[in-house]
């Protein structure tokens, strides 16, 4: 069993009009289909940006001895920027590869030993970018969880829309098509039904009953006599429906 289940297959657009180089690349593709796939071979760069936006190639192979990479156009690319490999008959064009932050530069005539290494480098680079991105995103998620980022719900009534911090909500009670919000600043009425709110309220909220969604931060006690009830910090006592009792107890114990 391999750790990476499927090897990444690179999709590539080639900008080249030298027949020999094109042939080398096609032979390389035929021998390495598992890793390398040519989307198209273009003999002019005017459509580079639209081709990239349409086909989202992983990489571009560009003949630096024929074309000049359109740096000015790059901010029109709306998809993930493809990795660049420059190829040329002239060593001096390596400078262009650095200037455009290419991942590799290969001298023509193209040698499959160098092409395979380029492909390897691109695959590895994409893996690293993805791993880094994952790390950054989960770091942000962790910080948000710790700081308990303020969440809000909107309360819609005939004449206004109020934005309420979820931390201020003690519990919600269904009233037909409406929902009553019991907050630290008093009662508020919304014209949306409770079902719509139960999906929005997460983390510290639990639907204890088809008529009640409670914020566990405001529960002082859970009474287990003649059924299960929540006693809130303002003195209100709410029933927990029989169906929900077990999952409610589990929920409380985990928080």
């Amino acid at each position: 069993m391999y750790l990476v289940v499927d090897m990444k297959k690179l999709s590539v657009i080639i900008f080249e009009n030298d027949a020999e180089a094109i042939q080398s690349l096609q032979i390389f593709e035929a021998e390495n289909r598992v890793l390398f796939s040519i989307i198209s071979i273009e003999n002019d760069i005017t459509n580079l940006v639209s081709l990239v936006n349409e086909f989202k190639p992983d990489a571009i192979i560009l003949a630096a001895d024929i074309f000049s990479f359109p740096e000015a156009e790059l901010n029109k690319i709306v998809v993930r920027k493809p990795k660049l490999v420059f190829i040329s008959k002239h060593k001096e064009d390596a400078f262009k590869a650095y200037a455009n932050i290419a991942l590799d530069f290969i001298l023509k005539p193209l040698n499959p030993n160098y092409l395979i290494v380029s492909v390897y480098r691109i695959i590895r680079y994409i893996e690293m970018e993805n791993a880094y991105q994952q790390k950054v995103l989960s770091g942000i998620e962790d910080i948000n969880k710790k700081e308990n980022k303020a969440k809000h719900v909107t309360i819609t009534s005939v004449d206004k829309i109020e934005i309420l911090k979820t931390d201020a909500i003690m519990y919600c009670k269904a009233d037909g098509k409406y929902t009553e919000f019991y907050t630290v600043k008093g009662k508020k009425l919304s014209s949306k039904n409770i079902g719509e709110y139960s999906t929005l309220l997460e983390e510290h909220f639990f639907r204890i009953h088809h008529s009640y969604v409670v914020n566990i931060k405001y529960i002082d006690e859970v009474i287990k006599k003649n059924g299960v009830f929540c006693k809130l910090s303002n003195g209100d006592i709410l029933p927990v429906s029989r169906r929900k009792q077990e999952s409610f107890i589990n929920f409380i114990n985990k928080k």
Partner: protein
Amino acid sequence: MSFKFHRIMMIDDEEIDNYLTKALIKNNNLAKKVIVFNNGFDAINYIKDHKDISDKLPDLILLDIYMPKMDGIEFLDVLSGIPLVDEGKCKVCVVSSSVIDNDILKSKLSKKVHYFTKKPITLNFLQTI
């Protein structure tokens, strides 16, 4: 056709590394046969099964260190305990990922290790071993 090595064994859990090395070996006729394992455990079983058949044992083993099931260090421990019909076989080249501290790694390696390189394995390296 003469090959530099009769048989090379690669042990690495990463498919892309195996692909690259195998391509370089095949394209440049560096070995007649290439055998690939993605963990040390299966590689050890192969060697145990063929310890008396010189022809089936690899001349060179390219060994990755960080793998699941049995890592490179454990592989080396077990390998040093297997009596081979030809002790010139199974020369190990440790292939490390360049992020790891190589000095600490080197201190853990056994006498069976003849060569040491970093990923990615280069053609130049294979040609000059």
